[in-house]
């Protein structure tokens, strides 16, 4: 038992195969059990995973992946082309309701070429496919498990190829993993991991401090001083791919004016937010995508300039009345409902409170609506767009900027919470996907990100850093910007 790692994590696992679960963090945990064909390294490089190399056909519609040999699932069955086809078929079938399927873009099918070669096809040319296949939604689950459990598979303990295997799932709060002694990448040193799900950050930290747990995902930044000087613990951190943005409701006539949107962006003191809400473990967002994503390049800083904001409002015809509320031709600025989730990302609700405070100060009447993530998403998709709510979310798409840009700012997409509609962006996205030369593709993403930012479809807020407190009794945890934290190398310290 000494050699079992006990980890406290902030949200509970809902489904036991990666394609069935929503939150990136949970997907990331399951990554230690189920692997993908490609992987993105912590420094944002695309690397081989279960596939060793890949190429695209001349018509750019067919990709050929060569699979790693000598890999088998923990139930003993081999990992081969049949397994890949089975998994792709499963996630593509609509009746299986795979939440994050959109991440795979125009992927349309899979075909076995030989035991260790598969062909994946896309409906349109899609240069992003290898990167997207690194998303957990495309994790490889043993066909034997599919056979055994059928439609119940999301709730059952399936087999993967990863360094750990699922041992048990105890309602409601605990997942136990044991080491896979036959892992192709070398068996882990620890015997297993117990994950306990605890919502409250203080409770998690208490567990760590009292020795109930060895690792605390994530440390609330404000609690950092409590662990910092303590030799028994250390704080690891990694900049996240996430970008906190607040989508502006383009449906409101007032929001049609870019000046208003810019003014709203200038009314926020990002430095103060980073320093006081996140205790310094966040940076002001300077692009429309997060710094951890492929294709990120700093566009420009957004200063805190309330005077300029006021000027811009005035240019757009809005000036403060005696109550300090913006008014245009005797009509008050429409009241904004600021929708945010609670506890999904460290600091999300406090950030929402503070930002809405700034908005109020700028003369925009703001009400808060903070919800549990599931309800939050439902409201963001259904209500927010119609009711003109401001939706704050920390986007963190599959390591790649294009993925985010082309989903959350393209009108027809359900994730375009603000209802932002810009035909130029659709053209740009098509161009990115049709560019198969890696550097050119990245440059296109950088450019698009920059001009999207300049159109202010959202209030761009912060890029957070994830902090994990661990006991110094264990080393070797590898954190990842995209929350695919790897426990494979964790080992007891000397």
């Amino acid at each position: 038992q000494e050699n079992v790692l006990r980890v406290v994590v902030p949200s509970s696992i809902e489904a036991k195969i990666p394609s069935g679960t929503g939150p990136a963090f949970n997907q990331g945990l399951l990554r230690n059990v189920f692997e993908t064909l490609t992987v993105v390294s912590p420094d944002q490089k695309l690397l081989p995973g279960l596939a060793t190399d890949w190429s695209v056909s001349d018509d750019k519609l067919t990709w050929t992946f060569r699979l790693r040999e000598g890999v088998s699932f923990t139930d003993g069955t081999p990992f081969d082309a049949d397994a890949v086809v089975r998994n792709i078929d499963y996630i593509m079938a609509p009746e299986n309701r795979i939440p994050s399927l959109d991440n795979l873009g125009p992927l349309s099918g899979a075909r076995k070429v030989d035991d260790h070669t598969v062909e994946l096809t896309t409906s349109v040319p899609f240069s992003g496919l290898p990167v997207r296949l690194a998303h957990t939604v495309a994790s490889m689950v043993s066909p034997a498990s599919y056979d055994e459990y059928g439609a119940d598979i999301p709730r059952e303990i399936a087999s993967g190829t990863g360094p750990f295997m699922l041992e048990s799932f105890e309602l409601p709060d605990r997942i136990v993993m044991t080491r896979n002694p036959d892992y192709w990448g070398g068996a882990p040193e620890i015997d297993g991991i117990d994950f306990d799900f605890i919502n409250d950050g203080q409770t998690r930290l208490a567990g760590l401090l009292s020795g109930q747990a060895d690792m605390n995902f994530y440390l609330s930044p404000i609690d950092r001083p409590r662990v910092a000087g303590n030799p028994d613990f250390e704080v690891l951190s990694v900049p996240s791919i996430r970008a906190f943005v607040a989508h502006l409701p383009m449906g409101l006539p007032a929001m049609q004016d870019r000046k208003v949107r810019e003014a709203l962006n200038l009314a926020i003191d990002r430095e103060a937010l980073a320093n006081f809400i996140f205790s310094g473990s966040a940076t002001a967002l300077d692009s429309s995508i997060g710094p951890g994503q492929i294709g990120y390049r700093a566009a420009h800083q957004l200063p805190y300039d309330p005077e300029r904001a006021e000027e811009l409002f005035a240019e757009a015809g809005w000036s403060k009345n005696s109550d300090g509320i913006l008014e245009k031709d005797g009509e008050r600025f429409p009241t904004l409902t600021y929708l945010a989730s609670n506890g999904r990302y460290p600091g999300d609700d406090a950030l929402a409170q503070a930002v809405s405070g700034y908005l109020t100060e700028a003369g925009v009447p703001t009400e808060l609506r903070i919800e549990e993530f599931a309800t939050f998403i439902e409201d963001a998709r259904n209500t927010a767009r119609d009711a003109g709510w401001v939706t704050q979310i920390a986007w963190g798409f599959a390591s790649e900027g294009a993925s985010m840009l082309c989903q959350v700012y393209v009108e027809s997409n359900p994730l375009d919470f603000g209802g932002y509609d810009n035909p130029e962006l659709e053209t740009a996205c098509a161009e990115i996907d049709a560019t198969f030369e890696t550097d050119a593709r990245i440059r296109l993403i950088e450019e698009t990100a920059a001009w999207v930012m300049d159109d202010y479809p959202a209030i761009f807020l912060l890029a957070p850093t994830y902090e994990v407190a661990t006991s110094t009794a264990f080393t070797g945890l590898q954190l990842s910007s995209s929350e695919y934290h790897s426990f494979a190398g964790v080992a007891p310290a000397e």
Partner: protein
Amino acid sequence: MADIAQAPAAPSGLRRWFGEAKSLGAAGTIGLVLVGLVLAGVLIGPLVWQVDPAQQQLSQAMRGMSAAHPLGTDHLGRDLLARAMHGGRLSLVMGFGSVFAAMAAGVAIGATAAMRGGWIEAVLMRLIDSLLSIPGMVQAVILVAVIGRGIVPLIVALAIYSMPIFARVAHQTARQLMNSEYVLAAVAMGSGRLRLAFVHIVPNFAAPIITIASFRVGANLLTGAALNFFGLGAQAPSVEWGLMIAEGQRYSWQAPMLTLVPGLALMITTLGLNLLGDGVRHRLDPKTRNSL
């Protein structure tokens, strides 16, 4: 002489019941004072301490006590004293509002059931029974889930879940009264149903109803605060004690005041209300003076 000793409480209206604090007994008097202090702090306080409870100043977050902020500031640098005082308003509105609504509805239902009898009585009381077959907090949580979140739905939920007890007592008392000789006498002299209800029945079960109500306010205050704490009720930027505790709990290591201040405020208010309830019962119903 003996007759006077047997006579129930003096009848001349609410004013007289509350007139002399002395008659509330020691506990009741303490309760009255506590509730008075809280009311003063919550109603008059903000007029004296004119600080905007929503005014945030991140650079001043979680500072201790100072002249500018007598109780310190919260995680967004807002003035804790101002927030505590404003927060109480919503808490009290919640407590009193829900009880008032519950009382009005419960008395109406109970009295109607008792006076109409027959299937109306059966249906109404069966409905009340089914409400009673689920524990209160669970009921409130489910009601909130059904009605939606926000302070108004919360008050409605609290009112619905505290209504059955009023309906039951009203029903029971009204039934007793319906059989009492003075109500029979009123019927015999030709009173209509309305007159019976408003002149003879409702005023005469004021005592048990008011006693229950005075305890209920405290209970609803706590339940409401708990629901706010769980994020099922009021939402920021509203200020409410339960909500303040919820917001402050993450910082209870760094700034215990954030949860201590609203928590103590809640406790003192509820304590005051409960003691006052004791006093009111003491006053209204000398027979049960020692029970409960």
